[in-house]
Structure formats: C-alpha cells, structure tokens
C-alpha cells in the first residue's frame, strides 16, 4: 500500500486569456517511510504539485490517491479533515499565527481535530520537546529565530500523527546551520517511520534525503535514489 499514488496529474491555471499548464500529466508513487526531495528549476511546478498533495489545491485533471483513497475531487470539509489528520504541511515562510505562542500554534491542529485539553497538552509538549523547543513554549513567533520558527511549524505538523509530512522549501529562508538543524529533525523523524516529501533547491539538502525527483516544465524528468548523507546527531 502506497501512501501517495498520483496518475496523470494536471494543473492548469487560467490567467485571463492564457492558460498556464503548471503540471502536465505527472505520475508518482511514494511508499511508506520514504524520504523524497523534489527538485527543479523555478516555475517547474514543484509547489503546485506539493499543494495538491497537501490537499490545499485541487488538480485540473488526473487521479490522486492518498492511502488508497481518491481525494482528487472531495468536498471542502472532507479535504479539511484530511489536511487535519493525514497531512503535516511545513511552509517556507513558516505560517505561524503571530498572536499565538509556540505552544498555542502547535496545539491548534488538535483543537480543530476535537482533541481534549489534557491530551493536547501532552502531545504539544512532546512535539515541542522533539524539535528541541521545550523551553520556548510560551514565546510568540516574533520572539523566535527563523530556525526556531520552522521547528515550531514542524512540531505543529506532527501533533495529529499524519500519514505524510510535506514541506515546501522548509530551509529556503534559513542559513545553512539552521537548515541542517531542520534536516536533522526530518532525518530523525524519517528514521522513526515518518514519510516525508520535501521541495528544495539545494543539492546539499537533497543529499540528506533518500530519493530525488526532478521536475521540468510540469513533468518529472528524473527520479533517482540517493546515497543518504546522515547528519550528525541523528539517532
């Protein structure tokens, strides 16, 4: 059973008179516990693809099965439910809510899932400990560094135990040291069984994954396994 199975995925943006084909029939299968890097030039359709995988956007055509369930044409609320329980999404720009503390940001997906406050406290604390921010729970995003913000975002993506973690250039806004910290966390999560698909521009970052998929003009042109470079500290 694959976590993700897409078949002939197409996305066409209508821009007034002209149509832009961002994805032109992409096929991809991601198995459980894989760690995939998606690479390619700017504008090749990586983000478009990841947004569809994250159920944030719908394909124009083609089939998308998540855990063997066709989700390509589900209704809004059903998709919200999938985003909530099955997917952990990490953005390049963190997308934390500025008025909430780190703890409250991490707690939020569980509130929408209807988890009770005692269980929430336990999971949120665990997730923040896991990304090494157990001592920063009460801090607001603007009191945290970029790397710390991204770690809060990763903790938030973990709390509902998703089937897959999707990350769109998670290190794109960070210096290389902070980027390595993030990759360390991903490697460690992957080691513990997490399935991860991430978009990146950097060869160094891609080298930390197990498989690289390369896009060009809305199509996959290369899909190769990687000799994973394990970062220090990953246990």
């Amino acid at each position, binding site marked *: 059973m694959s976590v993700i199975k897409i078949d002939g995925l197409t996305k066409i943006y209508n821009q007034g008179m002209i149509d832009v084909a961002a994805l032109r029939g992409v096929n991809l299968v991601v198995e459980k516990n894989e760690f995939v890097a998606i690479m390619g030039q700017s504008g090749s359709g990586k983000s478009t693809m990841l*947004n569809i995988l*994250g159920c*944030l*956007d719908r394909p124009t055509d083609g089939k998308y099965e998540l855990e063997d369930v066709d989700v390509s044409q589900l209704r*809004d*609320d059903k998709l*919200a*439910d999938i*985003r*909530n*329980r099955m997917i952990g*999404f990490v*953005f390049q720009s963190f*997308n*934390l*809510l500025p*008025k909430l503390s780190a703890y409250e940001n991490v707690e*939020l*997906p569980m*509130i*929408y*899932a*209807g988890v009770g406050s005692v269980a929430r406290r336990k999971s949120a604390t665990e997730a923040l400990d896991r990304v090494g921010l157990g001592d920063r729970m009460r801090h607001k995003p603007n009191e945290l560094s970029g790397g710390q913000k991204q770690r809060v975002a990763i903790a*938030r993506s973990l709390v*509902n135990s998703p089937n897959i973690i999707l990350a769109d250039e998670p290190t794109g806004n960070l210096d290389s040291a902070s980027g390595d910290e993030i990759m360390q966390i991903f490697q460690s999560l992957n080691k513990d069984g997490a399935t991860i698909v991430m978009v990146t521009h950097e060869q160094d970052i891609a080298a930390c994954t197990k498989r690289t998929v390369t896009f060009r003009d809305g199509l996959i042109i290369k899909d190769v396994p990687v000799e994973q470079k394990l970062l220090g500290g990953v246990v």
Partner: protein
Amino acid sequence: MNVAESARSSIKNVFANKMRAFLTMLGIIIGIGSVIMIMAIGSGSQAQMNSQFEEMGLGRITIMLASYDQSITEQDFLTAKDYAALKENTDVKYLSASLNYSAEVKLLDPKETNRASLTGIYGEYEEIASPEILFGRYIVDNDIALKSNVCVINNSTAVNVFGVADDSVIGKQIHVPTYRGTQKFTVVGVLDNPNAEMESYFSNEAQESIFLPITTLQNLLGTKRFDTMQAVVVDPNKSTEVATALTKRLDILHGTEEKYYAQNTMSLMDQINEMMGMITGFISAVAGISLVVGGIGVMNIMLVTVTERTREIGVRKSIGAKRRDIRTQFLLEAIILTGIGGVLGLILGYAGGIGIGNLIGVTPMITVQSILLAVGISCGIGILFGVYPANKAAKLDPIEALRYE
C-alpha cells in the same frame, strides 16, 4: 473545534485591538443605550401612574346610561330600586349613587354668590371617594332615610362661605338659592380637598362642592332618578366581570338591552398602560434604527477584519479548520462585539435614565425583560450583520488565502 475554544480565541481577537473594538461598539452602545433609557423612563412613569391609580382605588366601577339619546325613556333611569338590587350582589363591597345639580351658594358677603355643584350621595360614598373628614361627620344612612337638610362641604367652600374652615362651622347653615326658593342646609362635616386649588385653576368659575343626602336632593328636584352609581368591588381583579354582571342585572331589571355602561378603574388603567406601552414602543423603535446603523458599522469592520486576516484564515484552513470553524470564529467575534456593546449600552442607558428621570421627576425602572431584550437584540445584530463577513471568511480558498499578501 468546540464553542468554548472558539469563544476564547474570539475574545482574544476582539480585545487585540481595543480602540477599534470600542469604536465599532459605539453604534450599538448608543442604540441600545437610548432604547433602554426610553424604556426605563417609560416603565418608570407607567409604574408611577399605576400606583396613583392604586391610591385612587382599584376595583371602582361607575355605572351610567350608555347614551342619552331619544331611545331613553323614563323607566330607564337609575333609581333607589336599582340601588337595592345591586346592593344584593355579594361581589360589591360598597355602593353609592350620585345626582348632580348645579346651583349657587351665598358667600360670606350675602350679596355675593359662587357657583356650586350639589352632589347627592349615599353614605357609602365616603368609602368610595375616601375623602378626609377634617371636622364633623359624613352623610349617614339616617340622613338618607330622613331626607335631612344637612350637607358636607369642602374646606375651601367653608372658607368662602364662613370665612374659616374649623369646627365652628359645624351646625351653621349654608344658603342655596334655587328655583324653589333659598334652601338651607346645616353643615355636618368639612372635608379636606387638596385639589381645590388645582380645580379652580382649571375651571374658569370657582366651584364650591356641597354633598347632600341623595334623597334630599331628589326631593328638592322632584325626581327619583340618579345620574350615576358607584361601586367598589371586593376583589379588584374581578372588576371587569363584576361590572358586566351589574350592567346585565340593570338591563334585566329595566327590560332593556345593553343600555347601561360601566367604567372601571382597572380597565381604564389597562387602557392607559396599553397606550403608554405603545408610545414607549414607538419611540424605542425609532431609537432602534440607530441599531441598524451600528449593525452596518459592525459588518463593515468585520469585512475589513476578514480581509486583514486572510492569511490567518489560510493558515487555519491549511492545518484543518473547516468552513464551520472559521464561520463560528468570525460570527462569535461579531456577537462578542455587539454583545459587549449591548451590555455597555444597557449600563449607559440606565444611567441616562436616572439622569433624565431626576430632571422630570420619574424613577426609571429597568425590568428583566428589557435587559434580556437589550442583550438579545444586540447579539441578534451581531448574528445578522456578522453572518455575511463570517461566510465570506469561511468560503475562502485555502491556497489563495495563503498566497494573499
């Protein structure tokens, strides 16, 4: 997401920008404030009027002929027979009748006279009109039986006729010139009439009030009839039923149909209350229009808020918020805004009511209903004007909301 969680975060969001929240609430505060103020003054003066009615005595019925047109015959007039018949009704506590005659009375200077109203009554009229007897006594049953030439006068009349109003006037005679010669009545009592001054102020001729045994006046006028009858019922709450029973009884006695009319203080009070309620309601409704303006202000700010927080909505949706969650959040924010505005308006309106009440001598009254109404209406406005912005937020596409700059 449960309501408690939503409420918590909505309150936080509302208070994140206190100045804006206050300005948005202002329309609601003013609207609710003025409605509450008017209602407080309205029910205050209504209560005051009702207590005046109660002082006057509830459960008082006045019976008279319904109309005085050609259809009225000699047999229709009320007489002592009717008095005796209605006296049998056990729901009636006191019963009197009255006959009025307009005459003149000689004053201290015997060449001068004043207009006087002679009122023939039964002794029980004392219980109905409940005057204060300053000196002497009231008309009693014996006076009725003997048709005695005695009278009870107001203290103001005593001053005009005898120059003083003390117990020295008891036993003195007043002189009333009539078409049957000057009648002399011995004063047996002096009544306090605190309204005398006001009465003379409103009627252009000074009126002296003289009460006589009804039989004495009937005798003088050569008639057997009464003008009206007055009753006090045992249970004021049953006034309307008793009034109907009495007029029916009269119709049977006289072999007529609906010839008699009974007016009772209870129904009069009801009528006035109804009218006051209508006036208060109307003014409140006009003031309530400002609530609509306030509501539009709330809608405007909520739309701005939704636009400003598009990205937040995108983030919430991306981590699993459903349409319902977003809608609840923004709707609750609108309700909290207007609800708090309503409570502040309530306080302000009551304070204003006390202020204005002080000026016009009314104690404002705030009822549980008006509190519930104010809070209910302000929350209702939150819902009414919050639904559109909340729905707009709920329907945002997650990816477009996230891309919003």
